[in-house]
């Protein structure tokens, strides 16, 4: 027989104005299993809480129902009070008499009766409540950051500066990402490398950061606070300890005509190479796919010229296992290439280039040393067209979204062009100018007003080559949709930002969700923008959606702050509202039959397998097992389980069933 205490709150007059609280307390007192009931003006006040605490002790209550406001308001208050009186806090439930009854109904007997019904329902629920205890999960205070662009760099530095160990993994030979490729940055036109390289160096020198370049995530297991990551360190074919980064090998390598990734194919690199002069680490790697020795078994020039004997042709990939408590995913984005635009020549016109290629042409470290020269013949283009929304906002291209950064960088490109080619003419075809951001609109206005960039509102239907010129056919919708044809020397496509190739596989490895465009999904679009659905894995930057640099840096710092919060305690405390797979007597051991429908339905990948073994260690059966570190307590699995083998603490089948029964049986 239960000994439940029912405490009816008047909430001043908020409840008592329409509900006869004394009557509710009186009826509740007669309910089976109720040992004590009373009403009081303010249950949440100190004296009110004291009544509850006193009665728990005096009457030896084994369950408490506080009938007051919404549990979303004061459940923690009353559970804490119960806990202080020695009653397990999860034996306390709230009946919502204010928001769901007194405030929404007029004073009447029916209103009081509804209050009684609500109280009775919760009394029946409490009878089936079990004491629960907070789930404690240990936390490994080391973070893994995947991706060494500005997002990964910022997140690593912030976490490291908070005093925690960070492993930064980058798949390319150097950190820096797309930002290192940029010439200048909007809206200030300061040099990208000048602001980025100090951060890169800081990463390399930070005592708390372990940098792994030319490395990728192979596998991720575990859960928040307790991940096990396997990193594949691709063979660089050099001994990094011996290499001094003198660069002699890269000047002597005979294979010199490999399109440079860093220069977006507009320049060349050697087979043993450092992607760019400011690379961190500034040590070369051998590109096995292009090296003569790996291809034909002959060459080894680099080995001959290396003054420290650092070349290692026999080096193999290395798998490193790491234990980390949190993961920040900062794998960035990519852009559509010119070959994806049939209307603009399928990439067959060398002078139709992407915005990223233009960055390299405009960059002092680029293939033209910062002079704008067209790729086909090296001439300075006299006329140039920029096409905004190339792919973006175009459902036909499968990218209905706005890539967000293009309006701004196109304005920047046109300005840079006008600054470098004073007599040049530039045109921008655009759909809308989206320049929302601090000093952004001013920036695009500056391009139009001060730098005399010609903005044409309309789309370009076709670009084709004729007599060494590119003919751009478009429409100017602001001039009564007048067709426009411009003969130019170069065309720059502000092509859509897209997810990196391999994002889908990476997301699956980490069990995080991704959207229809393979960008990673945040846990909540507004309130959890840097969290993923998998606790302990956070997002930073453009792997989530196209983002500009300030937004990326803000997100990275946000993700780092989340990691620092997680690492601020040795143990993670979690609400014990989690699903549990039952156990029963042999020969069943559990009624779970291992169909794992629950596992496929779980939004958090919290359900795994467990082998039930006999004393000799033989597997008797495989059943589902909920990882309480990952389970968020939605209970979707419970409603799926045909044999009712999985149940949700706090909202068990018995509790919910009793509520329905009690509600309908006066």
């Amino acid at each position, binding site marked *: 027989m239960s000994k439940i205490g029912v405490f009816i709150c008047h909430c001043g007059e908020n409840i008592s104005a329409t509900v006869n609280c004394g009557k509710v307390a009186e009826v509740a007192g007669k309910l089976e299993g109720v040992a004590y009931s009373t009403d009081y003006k303010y249950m949440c006040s100190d004296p009110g809480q004291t009544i509850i605490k006193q009665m728990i002790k005096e009457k030896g209550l084994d369950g408490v129902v506080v009938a007051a406001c919404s549990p979303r308001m004061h459940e923690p208050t009353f559970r804490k009070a119960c806990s202080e009186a020695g009653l397990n806090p999860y034996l306390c439930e709230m009946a919502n008499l204010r928001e769901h009854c007194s405030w929404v109904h007029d004073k009447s007997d029916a209103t009081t009766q509804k209050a009684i019904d609500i109280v009775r329902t919760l009394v029946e629920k409490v009878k089936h409540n079990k004491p629960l205890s907070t789930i404690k999960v240990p936390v490994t205070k080391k973070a893994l950051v995947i991706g060494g662009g500005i997002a990964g760099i910022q997140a690593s530095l912030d976490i490291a500066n908070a005093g925690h160990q960070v492993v930064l993994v980058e798949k390319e030979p150097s950190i820096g990402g797309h930002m290192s490729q940029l010439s200048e940055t909007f809206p200030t036109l300061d040099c990208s490398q000048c602001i980025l390289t100090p951060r890169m160096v800081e990463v390399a020198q930070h005592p708390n950061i372990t940098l792994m370049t030319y490395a990728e995530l192979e596998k991720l297991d575990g859960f928040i606070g307790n991940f096990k990551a396997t990193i594949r360190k691709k063979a660089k074919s050099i001994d990094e300890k011996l290499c001094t980064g003198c660069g002699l090998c890269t000047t002597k390598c005979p294979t010199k005509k490999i399109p440079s990734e860093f220069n977006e194919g507009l320049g060349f690199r050697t087979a043993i190479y450092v992607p760019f002069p400011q690379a961190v680490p500034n040590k070369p790697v051998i590109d096995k796919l292009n090296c003569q020795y790996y291809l034909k078994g002959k060459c080894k020039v680099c080995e001959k010229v290396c003054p420290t004997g650092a070349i290692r042709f026999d080096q193999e990939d290395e798998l490193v296992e790491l234990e980390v408590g949190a993961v920040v995913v900062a794998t960035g984005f990519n852009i559509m290439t010119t070959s994806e635009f049939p209307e603009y020549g399928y990439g067959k016109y060398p002078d139709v280039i992407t915005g990223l290629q233009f960055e390299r042409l405009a960059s002092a470290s680029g293939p033209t040393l910062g002079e704008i020269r067209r790729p086909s013949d090296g001439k300075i283009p006299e006329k140039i067209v920029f096409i905004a929304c190339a792919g973006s906002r175009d459902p036909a291209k499968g990218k209905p979204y706005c890539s967000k950064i293009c309006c701004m960088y196109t304005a920047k490109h046109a300005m840079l062009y006008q600054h470098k080619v004073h007599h040049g003419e530039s045109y921008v075809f655009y759909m809308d100018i989206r320049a929302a951001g601090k000093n952004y609109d001013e920036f695009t206005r500056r391009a139009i007003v001060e730098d005399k960039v010609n903005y044409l509102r309309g789309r370009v239907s076709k670009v084709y080559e004729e007599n060494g010129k590119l003919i751009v056919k478009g429409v100017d919708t602001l001039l009564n949709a007048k067709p426009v044809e411009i003969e130019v020397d170069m065309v720059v496509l502000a092509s859509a930002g897209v997810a990196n190739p391999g994002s889908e596989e990476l997301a699956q490895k980490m069990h995080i969700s991704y959207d229809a465009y393979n960008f990673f999904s945040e846990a909540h679009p507004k309130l959890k923008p840097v969290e993923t659905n998998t606790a302990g894995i956070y997002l930073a930057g453009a792997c989530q959606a196209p983002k500009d640099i300030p937004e990326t840096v803000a997100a990275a710092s946000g993700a780092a702050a989340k990691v620092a919060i997680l690492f601020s305690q040795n143990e993670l405390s979690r609400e014990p509202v989690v699903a549990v797979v039952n156990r029963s007597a042999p020969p069943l051991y559990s009624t779970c039959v291992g169909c794992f429908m629950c596992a496929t339905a779980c939004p958090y990948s919290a359900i795994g397998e467990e082998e039930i073994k006999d004393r000799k260690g033989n597997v008797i059966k495989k059943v589902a097992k909920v990882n309480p570190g990952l389970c968020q307590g939605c209970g979707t699995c419970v409603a*799926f389980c045909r044999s009712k083998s999985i149940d949700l603490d706090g909202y068990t089948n018995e509790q919910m069933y009793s509520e329905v029964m009690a509600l309908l049986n006066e």
Partner: protein
Amino acid sequence: MNELIQKAKSLLESDTVQVVIGYGKGSADKTRAIFLTKPEDCDQLLFDSRCVQNLAVYLTKHEIKHLGKPAIVAPIPVLRSILQLAVENQLKESDLVILGVSPESKLIEFDSFGAIELFLNAYKIQIDEKYKATIDKIKAMPVSERFAFWIKELEPCFKCYACRAACPLCYCPKCTVENNQPQWIPAASHLLGNLEWHVMRAMHLAGRCTDCEACYNACPMGIPIHLLTKSMLQDVEEHFGPYGPSVGKRNTLSSFNPDDKESFIR
């Protein structure tokens, strides 16, 4: 037929399997499931149009599992059930030898579940027109009349659970009806209990049922419970696209599409 017997013999002789689950002569003119453990008994195997029991039901039965690795005579309905059991992690390829039987009564061996799936592509689950007509007729009744119709149909049910025992997909070691904390379904076979049991059974088969009709064939009272699952199969198809078990694919009800369409939610 001879082919099948020879194959079964050789599987037992070589000890590749320890039991062959097949059809044999039953009482009167009927066939029944037989379980052969000796090569010399294999001559009892037969296969013809009378063989309608879904033998896949035995694959998950404790008593049969104890006999060792099985080979199973598998016409199309059995193949579908095997695939669905595989989707639900109840069978592994190495667990059994499948002696497929084509509609032309030819022996087809399958070395993987994928091969079964490929084969079944040519034999998609299709609801018979006569059943469709019956379902439409029921749906056309006014709601009270429909309810009365079913209550009358379900009244003779005395909860023998033959439908459950015959269904290859009812393999839970402890069924919800045996649950008494809480007592979801009243144990007695009264109107409410019968109704609740059959609603639950149908819902548990939603998106899983492969339309083998074993439940209906097993029902001693001839209650048309297969209409429930058939109607749900139609619903699955209507709302979520063509249905057929596919290894590596999730069940209809443990998956979703954010764009699932309905017209009844405000």
